[in-house]
């Protein structure tokens, strides 16, 4: 029994030494300027993922602010990029299935800000160009009329 206890303790210590997933990156955060309080906005403008590889996961929080005087529902969705950053290629067609949006239809109170977790999880057997791009689009779906506005965050992925 003493040997069993010792074995459990050693095994636990060895496991504790194993590599752990990284903490969610808390990139530099800024306070929005006061003139944006009454504006609907999305931040950040761009997320860059480096050293990515099949089987890996990358996640980041985006922030959405409802600048209206009324509550609003937003859609948060994967978007094919139609204006590719120089040096990057469009994401593979199947990349949409790799992207996880924690809350695709958040409802925000007037003047409220909400964070939504976005993750990209590439299957181990998947392939992608060395550098590829997709967008995360945010739209206030309470808009009416023929012409509506949308905001998008660029996600730039660079493979290992």
């Amino acid at each position: 029994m003493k040997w069993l206890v010792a074995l459990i303790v050693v095994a636990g210590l060895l496991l504790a030494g194993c590599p752990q997933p990284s903490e969610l990156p808390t990139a530099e955060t800024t306070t929005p300027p006061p003139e944006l309080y009454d504006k609907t906005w999305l931040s950040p403008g761009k997320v860059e993922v480096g050293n990515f590889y099949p089987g890996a996961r990358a996640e980041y929080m985006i922030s959405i602010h409802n600048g209206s005087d009324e509550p609003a529902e937003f859609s948060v969705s994967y978007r094919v990029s139609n204006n590719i950053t120089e040096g990057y290629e469009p994401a593979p067609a199947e990349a949409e299935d790799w992207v996880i949006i924690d809350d695709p239809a958040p409802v925000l109170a007037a003047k409220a800000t909400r964070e939504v977790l976005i993750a990209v999880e590439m299957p181990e057997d998947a392939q992608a160009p060395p550098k590829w791009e997709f967008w995360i689009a945010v739209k206030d779906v309470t808009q009416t009329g023929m012409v509506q506005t949308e905001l998008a965050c660029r996600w730039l992925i660079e493979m290992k």
Partner: protein
Amino acid sequence: MKKTLLAILLAVALVVVPVGSALAATSQDVEITATPAYISIANAPGVWVINDVLSAGGQTILPDTLYYSNPLGDTTSPTVGGALATECLFTITNTSSVAIDLTVVFPDHIGGDASFNSDTGSNDTTDFGARTYFEGQASGAWAIAGGTSGTTGLGYDGLAVTTDIKWGLIYESQSDAWTSGTAMTNTVAGANPVTITATLD
């Protein structure tokens, strides 16, 4: 003895399983950085009645006809050498903290004799063509407003912070007459709108 064993197992578990790791996180060695910009735009008006900008066209769309969101005339082209502000119906304001790019998606019509976006900027027998034009742009720069995000060109590159620009839409109706021959409503609005998207420049 059993209590001792249980306590040891619990202690080991607390060491092995850090608090807060219940959700998968970014993989080790993956690097993430973000540009802490605020993307924000305002556009007005949100309405364009094709062939009725001046409320005189009766909203009737004829086949094989070019229509413009031009306050000077529904079928009057903007100046090809550089669209004038007076020829643009819409005003977009960059209220972001950075310069932005603008792209426009013009979806397929729904309802009636539904017409589809050719994604070429020009019409064909059963599809319409759509483009955008921005103040100051010559006709060669009038970008395709495709039916989906993958088929749309860059409408405007690098609109500066706290800057307005006027812009418009071009719609070229399909060249064949609609099949039913019956007047009907064909919708691009509400849940199926023209969408202008802003991204970091």
